[in-house]
């Protein structure tokens, strides 16, 4: 069953010149194509588009007597978009998520690279499995655990103190938030990068070496371009997850400074102002969607898919 897979080395980075599209049997509607494409479409139409439409409708509702009333009122949009605080928070959140994506990508790359190229088959498999494990322990619980490391009298400061350093304030700062973001995204970023790196054609790297390229040069000239899709997708996922995360900025950042996700919660405390929260959410969705398309477009550019 897996014989074919074994015989195929998968030259994924080859420019697709011989592209057998003309031979494909499907033209127009086919049962085969529909079997794969329709289920997701139907599911999302049924269970996702409706809530999304509700969200859009909600942003035009009004609140009377602490009760949500269907309405066609643009007040919430005007209110949020005229708020300087909103834009300030928006830009800050954007910067934080962007920074987290770069940080996680940069920190994850050597790890993914080493697992892909420096570990034997068996240890690589173990490494992958170990990387999956943290997903199964609650993110919330892990973030709470970090508090014990990061607090002023915590493990790290105690260790630093014993060699005469610190104490440093790490909890309730941007640093704390970033640790939390990495807790959330680092394993996923490593895995996604790894999936790409494992299929970089080794003969290409060898060729680069044979042509006298140094190690770093080979990485930047061959490995990274070949694994571009995975690297970009990994960074994108990191951006998406951190942009909307409220656990880390709240429990490790002390809500100090607030991000958009915290702002959403805050907004609802104005006596059920969910319409305004919906405006913020829709703005976040639009931002993430634009980012996602830009990133995916960039990732697949020139690959011919």
């Amino acid at each position, binding site marked *: 069953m897996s014989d*074919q*897979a*074994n015989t*195929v080395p*998968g030259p994924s980075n080859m420019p697709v010149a011989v*592209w*057998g599209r003309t*031979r494909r049997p499907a033209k127009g509607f*086919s049962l*085969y*194509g529909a*079997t*794969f*494409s329709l*289920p*997701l*479409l139907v599911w*999302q*139409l049924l269970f*996702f588009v409706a*809530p*999304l439409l*509700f*969200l859009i409708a909600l942003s035009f509702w009004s609140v009377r007597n602490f009760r949500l009333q269907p309405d066609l009122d643009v007040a919430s949009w005007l209110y949020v978009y005229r708020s300087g605080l909103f834009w300030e928070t928006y830009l800050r959140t954007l910067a934080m998520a962007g920074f987290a994506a770069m940080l996680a990508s940069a920190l994850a790359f*050597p*790890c993914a690279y*080493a*697992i892909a*190229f*420096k570990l034997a088959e068996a240890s690589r*498999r173990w*490494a*992958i499995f170990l990387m*999956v*494990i943290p*997903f*199964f*322990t609650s993110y*919330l*619980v*892990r*973030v709470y*655990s970090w508090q014990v*490391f990061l607090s002023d*009298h*915590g*493990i790290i400061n105690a260790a630093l103190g014993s060699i005469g350093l610190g104490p440093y304030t790490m909890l309730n700062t941007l640093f704390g938030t970033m640790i939390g973001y990495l807790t959330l995204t*680092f394993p996923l970023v490593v895995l*996604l990068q790894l*999936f790409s790196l494992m299929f970089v054609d080794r003969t290409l790297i*060898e060729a680069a070496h044979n042509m006298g390229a140094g190690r770093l040069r080979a990485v930047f000239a061959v490995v990274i371009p070949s694994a571009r899709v995975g690297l970009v997708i990994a960074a994108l*996922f990191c951006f998406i997850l951190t942009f909307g995360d*409220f656990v880390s900025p709240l429990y490790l950042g002390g809500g100090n400074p607030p991000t958009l*996700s915290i702002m959403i919660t805050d907004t609802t405390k104005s006596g059920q102002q969910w319409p305004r929260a919906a405006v913020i*959410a829709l703005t976040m*969705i639009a931002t*993430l*969607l634009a980012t996602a398309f830009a990133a995916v477009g960039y990732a697949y550019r020139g*690959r011919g*898919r």
Partner: protein
Amino acid sequence: MSELNRNPLIDWLLRLYVLASFAFIFAPIAASFVFSLNEDRFPSLPLGGFSTQWYEAVATDPLVWEGLSNTLTIGVIVSLVATALGFGAAYTDYRYRFFGKTVYLALALLPPTIPVIILGLAMLAFLSRVGLSGQSLSVIVAHVVMTAPFAMAIIRLRLSQMDPDLEAAAWNLGASEWAAMRHVILPFARPAILAALFITMAVSFDEFAVAWFVSGLNETLPVRVLGFLQGQVSPRINAIGTFVFLTSMTLVILAQLVLMRRPKEGNPDG
């Protein structure tokens, strides 16, 4: 691998870096394990005495067991459905070009971009209007929506590494589309499918914000954990965390042993 071993020092540094990465990943999990066996309700240094009281508290809480069985059932169903849907979407994106594909992709990838608190409310509003709120089914529906994109991304990534001529070659050799799917695409995508199953299940296991809204009185374990954490800050969360960790560890090791016993099944990537 060995042919790339140019500089042993750098190789060792890289291996050390991998170890450091794992230390970062497992540090909070290990701490949580230690605190789960600590008698103090509020974990702090220095540690208090050894105690298994939090495990007992968890074990005798019927709502935890109810939550756990809910979570497991939901997680398994979600991972199967989401991975199937995600595979279909990934394959569609890989193979077809059609009018409205951008919209299709947007629909497939949009859900994780929605802040969970507001998605929870929107989901509840919709599901209660169609009579689907407050059940395990509601959580399944919501979690599939949320996790299918992860499955799709992982599988799509794998498909993009496949030689595009491969499927066509199978057709040319007389295989039907279905046969090519079964003998070429599926085996090739298998590691990604496995990964997608794991990750979607894990995301469902861990999701509490949307589940809080839509599950109503049929709470899942993460929602219960949120209660412990918010109202209680009790080491019970660490006990639960450790339990789940040990379970997943065991599953992983079992999976490893099974894989190793069937060397023929090995894929190029493991």
